[in-house]
């Protein structure tokens, strides 16, 4: 029987161009992301098998306000990587973006003409309903929760998302927030944030929902992390024992993935230490592949393993392809205004613009202004001291303190 299961999984994988070898190699890299030894590979493979072959998918993917880039990152239409295929097996892709046309029964061809009988379980709406009733699924949430405009910034099938979301979150066993928007609102929640966007963790907190949230920031998310976390949650006992939550950092991110800065593992780091910088794009320094610090690289304070896992099936990643890191992995789920755009923009400057009195200033402008005012004040004061003739030893001392004089003292 177990053997039959193996074959079933591998034939499903093979049908999508993933060999048994690819799959096991992938399980190996997942083990690394989860902090497990190679000996855990069979355990991971077994967890995927078990989950993929149950009648009901363990995971559900829901979109909030987003550019859909995370979906794109997963989908990679031309050459789906192993992660995508595995996630396909594990999740009910209730992508509102791609499944809209399947909405209710009226969308089934022939239904409205009365030719076809309504089978609710065949529709996206029907499938999600069953899942919600049964509960215990992993909710993969992409995008910002947009609470502004009475929740009307995002309406699905006649309802606002903020109306539906509490139930979806409450019945989930765990929420995996994919992409910075889901984590803390991301760029959708950047100043001035008209849609009043927030991350799913903040939303749950505000709604009094206790479902654990695993945050996977970056814009877009890295598919390998998503699968690693879904499997991590699936591995028996992780959730019940709280083991999975122990692996998260202060921002609810898996510490193994978000524990080191980009700068720590950057291939340009040697140039940084040598003081070899790109000061301008299109320059000879850029052609030499120098460090991008002076054009605003946020690598030193951005915690992700991008340089190791890389993107698009390990092809490359931002800094390697020549762009300074813009810090999309910076996340502050429970601190509004902490999203990576507010923290990082303008991206080609080292420091963010600070909003003061209705406009924004660079910290160095503020610093220099304060320094200049102080220098000017001292200069003016110095002239005053000269005029008052105090330069040479100061004015003569008072003979008694004003306070003592008032008290009638004095000598």
């Amino acid at each position, binding site marked *: 029987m177990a053997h039959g299961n193996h074959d079933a999984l591998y034939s499903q994988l093979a049908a999508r161009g993933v060999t048994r070898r690819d799959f096991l190699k992938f399980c190996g890299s997942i083990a690394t992301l989860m902090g497990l030894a190679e000996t855990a590979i069979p355990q991971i493979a077994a967890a995927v098998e078990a989950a993929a072959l149950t009648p009901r998918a363990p995971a559900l993917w829901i979109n909030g306000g987003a550019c859909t880039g995370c979906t794109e990152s997963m989908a990679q239409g031309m050459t789906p990587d192993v992660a995508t295929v595995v996630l396909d097996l594990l999740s009910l892709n209730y992508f509102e973006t791609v499944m809209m046309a399947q909405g209710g029964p009226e969308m089934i061809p022939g239904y409205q003409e009365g030719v076809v009988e309504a089978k609710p379980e065949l529709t996206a709406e029907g499938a999600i309903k069953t899942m919600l009733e049964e509960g215990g699924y992993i909710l993969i949430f992409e995008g910002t929760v947009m609470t502004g405009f009475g929740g009307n910034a995002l309406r699905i099938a006649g309802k606002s998302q903020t109306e539906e979301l509490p139930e979806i979150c409450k019945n989930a066993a765990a929420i995996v927030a994919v992409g910075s928007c889901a984590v803390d609102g991301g760029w959708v929640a950047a100043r001035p944030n008209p849609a009043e966007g927030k991350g799913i963790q903040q939303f749950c907190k505000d709604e009094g929902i206790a479902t654990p949230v695993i945050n996977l920031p970056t814009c877009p998310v890295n598919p390998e992390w998503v699968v690693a976390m879904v499997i991590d949650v699936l591995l028996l006992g992780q959730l019940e024992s709280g083991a999975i939550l122990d692996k998260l*950092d*202060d*921002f609810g991110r898996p510490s193994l993935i978000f*524990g080191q*800065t980009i700068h*720590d593992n950057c291939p340009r780091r040697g140039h*940084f*230490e*040598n*003081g*070899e*910088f790109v000061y301008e794009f299109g320059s000879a320094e850029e052609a030499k592949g120098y460090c991008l*610090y*002076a054009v605003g690289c*946020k690598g030193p*304070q951005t915690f992700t393993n991008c340089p190791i896992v890389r993107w698009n099936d390990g092809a490359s990643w931002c800094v390697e392809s020549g762009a300074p890191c813009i*810090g999309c992995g*910076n996340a*502050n789920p429970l*601190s509004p*205004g*902490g999203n990576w755009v507010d*923290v*990082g923009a303008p991206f080609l400057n*080292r*420091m*963010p613009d*600070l909003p003061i009195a209705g406009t924004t200033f660079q*910290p*160095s402008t*503020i*610093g220099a202004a*304060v*320094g200049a005012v*102080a*220098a000017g004040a*001292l200069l003016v*004061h*110095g002239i*005053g*001291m000269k005029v*008052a003739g*105090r*330069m*040479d*030893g*100061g*004015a*003569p*001392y*008072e*003979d*008694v*303190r*004003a*306070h*003592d004089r008032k008290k009638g003292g004095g*000598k």
Partner: protein
Amino acid sequence: MAHPAHYREAHPMVFVLTHWINLIAMVSLAFSGFYIHYPFFAGFMGVARGMHFFFMFVLIINLTFRIIAAFFVKSAVSLGSREVDTDIKNWLPQKANRHQFLAWIKYYLFMKKDHPLGAKYGVLQKIAYIATVPLTFVMAYTGFSIWGPTMDWSFFSAGAGWVGGYMYMRVIHYFLMWVFIVFTAIHAYLANVEGFAPSGLIFAWKESEGLHFDKEGNPAGGKAH
């Protein structure tokens, strides 16, 4: 001509040394800090960071030593006096500093003609010196919060979360540098504007004659001239 005498008892040798070390550390940290903030010439980042990471420990150890020494070393009770007492008593507000805050402000704003009486230091001077202590520790806290080896200690990472992330911790660290620069500018200006005798003492341990004061901060033998 009305400046007090500057005797070595005011700044015993240890404090001349701590002040020198502090000055060198501060200048090195500010210079390397400016460079780390924006590498304005090529080829120096490794050295700049090395400098910064070395002098940040020098600064903290020096300050800690200065504070401990204050409880053991005796220094003059007021400028222009050779009478000594435990330094910390002279460093913190003294009885002779009371009720003089407004007088000092008025004096510096040219609204009062004669020089206010002080103690070991004047009121504003004491506020500024005392403020450098927590300020340096806050500087160290913000610095260790963005330093690789310590940034993930929960004591530091909690602060980073609180201010909105490591980038803002850097912004705060950077602003604090300007606070130190402004402090030092005002401090160096005021220390020297009425003559170089104070600097002669704190840097070269050179004594100079002048008015004498008693331990209540009043001119010794009656009126000042």
